[in-house]
């Protein structure tokens, strides 16, 4: 075993379980989140494996209908609320934001630790609900099914999600205040890395949207617990009102998942193209535009729910509008490659994979924004494919890219470059093989959340399950070589990629206080090529 040089960093500054569970260091809290969400990801993936196995054959023969319904519900709940929403913000945002803006920590370290505990408590409630029988409402909790018809652990799960929501609110609050008040001298808003801009936009959604879904889930909970009729049509309640309140958060929540990934891509592409970002201001402002417009499009989940034709039109036109800032980002990333000096380390492969998958996800989003077309493909596998392209192809690809990019900074170790490239290719190929056939299935008319399906859909489902096994392998490989690297990986220098950004000017792993002296910023972000002095 290689021994690290005797330099104090945040990992060896203190030892013992207490030093982790009571830490106020944003970097350690990031690692706590990393471990927790990885476990949740494995759990969510297990559900996905069982779902894909069931769908190998048209008959519902692998698990029972109730079990299947619980599987897709818990897959959605675990992956969305406990993996994707906290993934990049809580792990990498926590770790990197203070480093990127030259601060010693986030503004409120105690709140930060509290957010992790809140997440864990919510997670325990949800796991308890899963272990004691599970929940079968779909992650959307549509009323009146969730309030009057379901016989599963809706209340317990609702409590879990309600609690976890506050972890996200606290994280968002912390980020906003930190970005506003704790930037290093000279670090003006338009010198911030785009990763920070993306997290600022994400945090806005977290603090504005999450309380609404919390109160909505709370109402579902008390309706179930006390037999009230808030969303029950039998007592004059309106089940469609639930959908409005739910999607008011849950559509913007999609942007909570994808915006941080977009920030990551800007960092990675500039580094490996050795170029400034093309159109910095446009990428920065488009993040805010997405956050704002994201709040105005929720009705596009309800085009077939008998809402008024004119409301549908307004939501449709706004949904088309929100596609523009996303397109602007893709074009700017592409233009950043122009006349670059491009190399293809693993993070860059993930980033390029992101551009491909996100483009497909974004373009198919237009199909769903289009009223006449959405009526046909709504609630079919077309929707399933679309949001997996965004949330897995986009968000998860960005997350993997980010983990590979900043792994040396977080752990002080390098991983096997060759294995990482294999993993990037496996994920890209496996993902497309899994989810592209689902677009075809959706247009053919296969509804989502079906335990059994007509025979003619089998060929495409078999393709999808085959792809999923390749995709699964693509996820398992990094788990192995990254863990391996913790002990056997070569030591990382302060700046192994020769990247710009304050986080690369401090040693890997960084000391507890992040910087020996508060850095002073005199330039814009991404001043590639770096001057010799900056390359440590």
């Amino acid at each position, binding site marked *: 075993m290689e021994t690290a040089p005797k330099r104090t960093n945040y990992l060896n500054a203190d030892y013992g379980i207490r030093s982790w569970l009571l830490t106020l260091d944003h970097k350690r809290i990031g690692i706590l989140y990393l471990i927790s969400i990885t476990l949740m990801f494995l759990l969510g993936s297990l559900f996905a494996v069982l779902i894909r196995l069931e769908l190998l054959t048209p008959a519902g023969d692998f698990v029972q209908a109730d079990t299947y319904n619980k599987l897709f519900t818990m897959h959605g709940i675990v992956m969305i609320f406990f993996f994707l929403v906290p993934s990049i913000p809580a792990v990498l945002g926590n770790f990197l934001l*203070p480093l990127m803006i030259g*601060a*010693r*920590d*986030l*503004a*409120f*370290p105690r709140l930060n630790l509290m957010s992790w505990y809140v997440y864990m408590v919510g997670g325990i409630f949800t796991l308890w609900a899963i272990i004691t029988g599970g929940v079968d409402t779909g992650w959307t909790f549509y009323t009146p099914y969730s309030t009057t018809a379901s016989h599963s652990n809706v209340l317990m799960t609702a409590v879990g999600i309600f609690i976890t929501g506050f972890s996200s*609110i606290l994280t968002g*609050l*912390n980020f*906003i*205040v*930190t970005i*506003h*008040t*704790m930037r290093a001298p000279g670090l003006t808003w338009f010198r911030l890395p785009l990763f920070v801009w993306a997290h600022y936009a994400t945090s806005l959604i977290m*603090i*504005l*949207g*999450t*309380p*609404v879904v*919390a*109160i*909505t889930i*709370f*109402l579902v909970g*008390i*309706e179930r617990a*006390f*037999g*009230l*009729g*808030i969303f029950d049509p*039998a*007592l*004059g*309640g*309106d089940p469609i*009102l639930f959908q*409005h*309140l739910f999607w008011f958060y849950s559509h913007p929540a999609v942007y909570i998942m994808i915006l941080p990934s977009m920030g990551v891509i800007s960092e990675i592409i500039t580094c490996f193209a050795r170029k400034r970002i093309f159109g910095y201001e446009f990428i920065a402002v488009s993040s805010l535009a997405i956050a704002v417009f994201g709040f105005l499009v929720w009705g596009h989940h309800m085009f077939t729910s008998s809402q008024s034709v004119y409301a549908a039109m307004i939501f449709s036109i706004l949904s088309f509008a929100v596609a523009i800032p996303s397109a602007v980002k893709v074009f700017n990333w592409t233009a950043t490659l122009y006349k670059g000096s491009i190399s293809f380390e693993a993070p860059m492969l993930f980033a390029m994979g992101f551009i491909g998958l996100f483009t497909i996800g974004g373009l198919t989003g237009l199909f769903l924004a289009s009223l006449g077309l959405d009526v046909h493909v709504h609630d079919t596998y077309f929707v399933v494919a679309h949001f997996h392209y965004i949330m897995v192809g986009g968000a998860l690809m960005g997350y993997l890219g980010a983990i590979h990019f900043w792994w040396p900074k977080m752990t002080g170790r390098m991983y096997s470059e060759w294995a990482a490239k294999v993993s990037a290719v496996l994920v890209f190929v496996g993902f497309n093989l899994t989810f592209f056939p689902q677009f075809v299935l959706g247009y053919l008319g296969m509804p989502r959340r079906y335990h059994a399906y007509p025979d003619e859909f089998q060929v495409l489902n078999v393709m999808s399950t085959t792809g999923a096994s390749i995709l699964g392998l693509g996820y398992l490989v990094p788990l192995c070589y990254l863990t391996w690297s913790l002990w056997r990986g070569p030591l990382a220098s302060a700046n192994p990629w020769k990247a710009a950004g304050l986080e690369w000017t401090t040693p890997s792993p960084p000391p507890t206080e992040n910087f020996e002296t*508060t850095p002073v910023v005199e330039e814009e972000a991404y001043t590639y090529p770096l001057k010799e002095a900056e390359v440590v």
Partner: protein
Amino acid sequence: MSSSTTVAHQFDDAAQQKRASTLGMWVFLVTEVMMFGGLFTAYVVYRSLYPEAFAQASHHLNAELGAANTLVLLGSSLTMALAVRSAQLGKRAGTVIGLIATIVLGSVFLGVKAYEYSHKFHENLIPGPSFVFPGSEADHAQLFFSLYFAMTGLHALHMVIGVGILGTLTVMAARKRFSAEYHNPVEIGGLYWHFVDIVWIYLFPLLYLLGRH
């Protein structure tokens, strides 16, 4: 426990710390507005669907007690403002007295609220299987009372938390933790308290007065 406790390690100076904590409370209040906003939306939708039932149901609330409670809360906002002013001037006694007065008024509000709740219980106006409402629109009246309890209950929860915060501030003030230079926690606690008051200023007319003839 000297100057090192007043400026946390992550901040450069007291001014930065103050900016951060004040902004933090404002951001938090924004999330609170959104949370109550969800309930207000539900209220507005159902009120417009069933105006008659909501008017009838609101007659079962005691407007006199509600009005009295409104005055109590407005008074508590005044004492809170006085406490903040005293803290800014570094007057310890004034701060402590203002905070205690605010706690007392807040507790009076909660006491009256508890009395109202128990009254509703005796009248069988607690939503659920035992709900009894005279008149033909019992179902819709139950919606009203569901929202009434959800909204005032969430508000009361905020009051309870507020009283707890003020209690902590009182102890800190009594122990000379604040000065004319460092009194930010009192200001932030005050922001929270005023917010809780403002929520009630909206709840009172919506629930007690609207539709009353």
